[in-house]
Structure formats: structure tokens, C-alpha cells
């Protein structure tokens, strides 16, 4: 089963996404802030990372940049999860090294497509 690391600080979003992805056959690990996200990426070496962009401690852009500059983790595909509200989030996510992005509210079929493209 492919392993996905979900980095998301909002409890409800985390709950919803992890449950639905587990039902689709993914093994899910959770990180609740950017710092934890970077650490777990290195520790677990997941097959894909879903990174919320607005995180406490370390934001999603910084966390992604660190993951992408670490030799051990740089090949792990990262999908940015951006809130619709912020203009420029998308461009910033791609500039930080994200392989793709998706906007909230999450539409599961759309997200699954993107995940499957990168795995």
C-alpha cells in the first residue's frame, strides 16, 4: 500500500482527508506542523507528501523547500494543498518546489488523480 504523509494543522481537514484516503487504500501518516512534516518526511520516506500551505511553526513553503533540498527526501513528490482565499499561493507553491497543487475544498476524485499521476 502506498504511503502518504499528510501535513495539515486543522483537525477536521486532517480527519476528513486521512479517513477518505485510507478508504481508497493508502497508508496515512500525519504531521501537524511544518517542522514535524520535515522530520517525518526524512524518518518515514513516504511515497508522496500532501502539504497544507498555511501551517504553524514552519509554513508549507519553507517545509517543502527543506524537503526538496534534502538529498534523502528530494525525490518524494509533494502536492501543495492551498486555500482558495490566498492569491499567489499557487505560484509560490510551485516556486518552492511542489510537484502539483490542489485547492480546498478538496474534491477527492480530483486529488486522487493528481496523487496517482505522481506515484
Amino acid at each position, binding site marked *: 500500500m502506498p504511503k502518504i504523509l499528510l501535513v495539515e494543522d486543522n483537525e*477536521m481537514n486532517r480527519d*476528513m482527508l486521512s479517513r477518505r484516503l485510507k*478508504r481508497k487504500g493508502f497508508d496515512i501518516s500525519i504531521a501537524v506542523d511544518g517542522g514535524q512534516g520535515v522530520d517525518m518526511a526524512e524518518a518515514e520516506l513516504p511515497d508522496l507528501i500532501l502539504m497544507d500551505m498555511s501551517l504553524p511553526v514552519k509554513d508549507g513553503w519553507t517545509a517543502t523547500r527543506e524537503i526538496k533540498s534534502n538529498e534523502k527526501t528530494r525525490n518524494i513528490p509533494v502536492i501543495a494543498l492551498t486555500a482558495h482565499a490566498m*492569491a*499567489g*499561493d499557487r505560484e509560490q507553491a510551485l516556486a518552492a518546489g511542489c510537484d502539483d*497543487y490542489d485547492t480546498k475544498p478538496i474534491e477527492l476524485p480530483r486529488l486522487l488523480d493528481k496523487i496517482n499521476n505522481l506515484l
Partner: protein
Amino acid sequence: MSTSSLRSSPTLDVETLGNELRKPIQKVLNRVNRLSLQVKQGSFDDKEQMLTDLGKIENATKQLSRLVEDVFRQRVTPDGQIDTNSFSATVRHDLRTPVNAIIGYSEMLLEDAEASSSSAQADLADEFEELMTIGHHLLSLINELISFVKGREAPKPSKADLVDASPHLLEDAFQTITHDPSLPEIPATPAEVNEGTLLVVDDKDSNRELLSRQLGRYGFTVETAENGLQALKMMAEKEYDTILLDVLMPELNGFQVLAAVQADPKLKHIPVIMISALDEIDSVVRCIEMGAQDYLQKPFNPTILKAKINATLERKRLRDREQAYLKRLKQEQEKSEKLLLNILPRPIAERLKGGIQSHSSCTLQWRSCSALTAAW
């Protein structure tokens, strides 16, 4: 269910906006209460999970309600309008989060109900789908509210927005139609026909809103799509006179939409004007090479906007006339062919066509032309 539009309210005031939002919020709360009771009293496999999820929907809805009251009670200026400065990106984000939760948990309840072996649970699927629909309705109301407030904003970024530290927010704030008072207004001459149905495709609510208002003022009929897929669907159902297409969009971007339009023989004659921000010249060139008619840069100069659209429409009108003419010509030719075959047996007709073809068809053409001229 009816999706009432905030924009269609005759008096768009704070009172009306508030009520429009309160109604679906109350609806969700009522239904969740009823469903929770039903689940508690019934026997379901996933009872615990269902009650937990319903509880989460209730909490999210209550949170949304509190936020809405906050916006409408405390962020209102003395003259009764929503204070745009305090309606920051954070507020917008906070309004959307609980709505996303309402939608997400309803969807999960629905999925569980549909997959369930218990018929009692499956019966509830419709109820959960209703919840999800109301959730989507709430989301579109919130988005309308946001673009309404943004539309009233003077085009300068608020401090709160800058604090959110997105470097592109300035660009976003200025991607409105700027009015340059130094340029003379081109008067509407009798020859200028601001007529036609336009389709504006842009993922940003504020851009769609502003463009459609501006173009509407010039007399165009404007419809909007918020993504490429919706645009293509709308184009399949109606013929637009021009498409205004944003390059940078999520999912299906401007290039992909343009490629789809060019690939469809029914659509490729419809002119497309690409809309681009300043630093995307490469993509603009690529679009024109792919068949776009023209491009417009943001921020829009209203004079150039109007001129380019009118030029595009005029070109399309000429092309449409030409197509109509050619079609009529073809019909006349077919009529003449039939007539010839009525008079002469086919092999002789063919020989005649082979030998004296130029003479007889010239005569026929000439008659067709005058018939057409008379018609025009």
C-alpha cells in the same frame, strides 16, 4: 434546490446579505439535529461514527454562524456597509474553512451510507446528499459575498492582506480594471456596435465580476465560467461571439482550453482573446501561435479592452456572413445540379458538364449571385 444569488437582490445591503447566509445555516442545523435523533434511535452499523460526523457538521455550522454574525455585526461601517479593510484574507479563509468541513463530512456520511449493507443507513443517503448540496450553496454564497466586498474595495491592498505575506497579493489587488482619466473617452459612434455574447473564463471571482460589469456597461451580454471544464460545457450548449480566457487557472489552464476549442470543428471558429498578467509574455505568444485571436494584459485599459473586443466581433461577423454566403452558394449549386439532372439523363449531363461546363455553370452562378444580392 434554488440557488439564490446575492447579486440578484435588488437592494444589496448588509441586512439582505446576512439573511441570505443565515437561512441555509439554520437549515443545516435543523437537519443535523433531526438526523442525529434518527440515528440515535435507529440501529445502524456505524452509529458511533455517524453521530460523531454529524456532530462535526453541527460544530462547523455553529462556528460559521458565529463568524457570519461577527462580520455583519462588528465589521460594519457607520453607514451600514461591510468594512472592507477588516474583511481581510484571514476572515475569508476562516469563513471558508467550516463550510469545507460541512461539505467534507456530508460527503463522507454519504459515501458510508451508499456503501453500507444496512438498508436503514442507505436510506439516509439522500439526506446526506441534501446536506452536501446546502454546503455547496453556502460556499457559493460566501464566495459571492467575498467578491462583492472585494468589488467595492478601492484597488489598494489592505494592511491585513499584506501581513499574510503573499508577494503576489499586490499584483492581485491591482488586477482590476484601471481607469486612466488622461485618455479621452471614445464616444459611442453609430458605427460602433457593442453587441454580442461574450464568455469570460477566469478562476478568480473578482476578475470575473469586474470584467462582466465593465463589459455589461458597454452593452455586451456577458456570461462567466470559473474553470476550463465549465467553459467547454457552456460552449457546447451555446454559441458565444468571443471568449475571454485567462491563461493561469488550476485544473484545465488556458492552453488546454484553447487546444480543446481548436480541436473541435464546431468551436474553432469562435475567437478567443487570452487574458494575461504582465509576466507571461511567453505563454501569450504560445497561445497566439496555437490560434488565439489576440491577448489582453491586466490591468485592463478600458479603451483597448473595448476596441479589441469590437475588432474581434467584427471579424467574426464578417466570417459568419462569409460562411452564410458560401452555404447559400452551395445550396444554389446543388439546386442547379438537380435541375440539370431533371432535364437530361445523367450520362449526358455528365458529358455536358465535362465539355460545356464553364459556360453553363457561369450562367447558373450569375443567376445565383443576383438572387443572393437581392436577398442581402
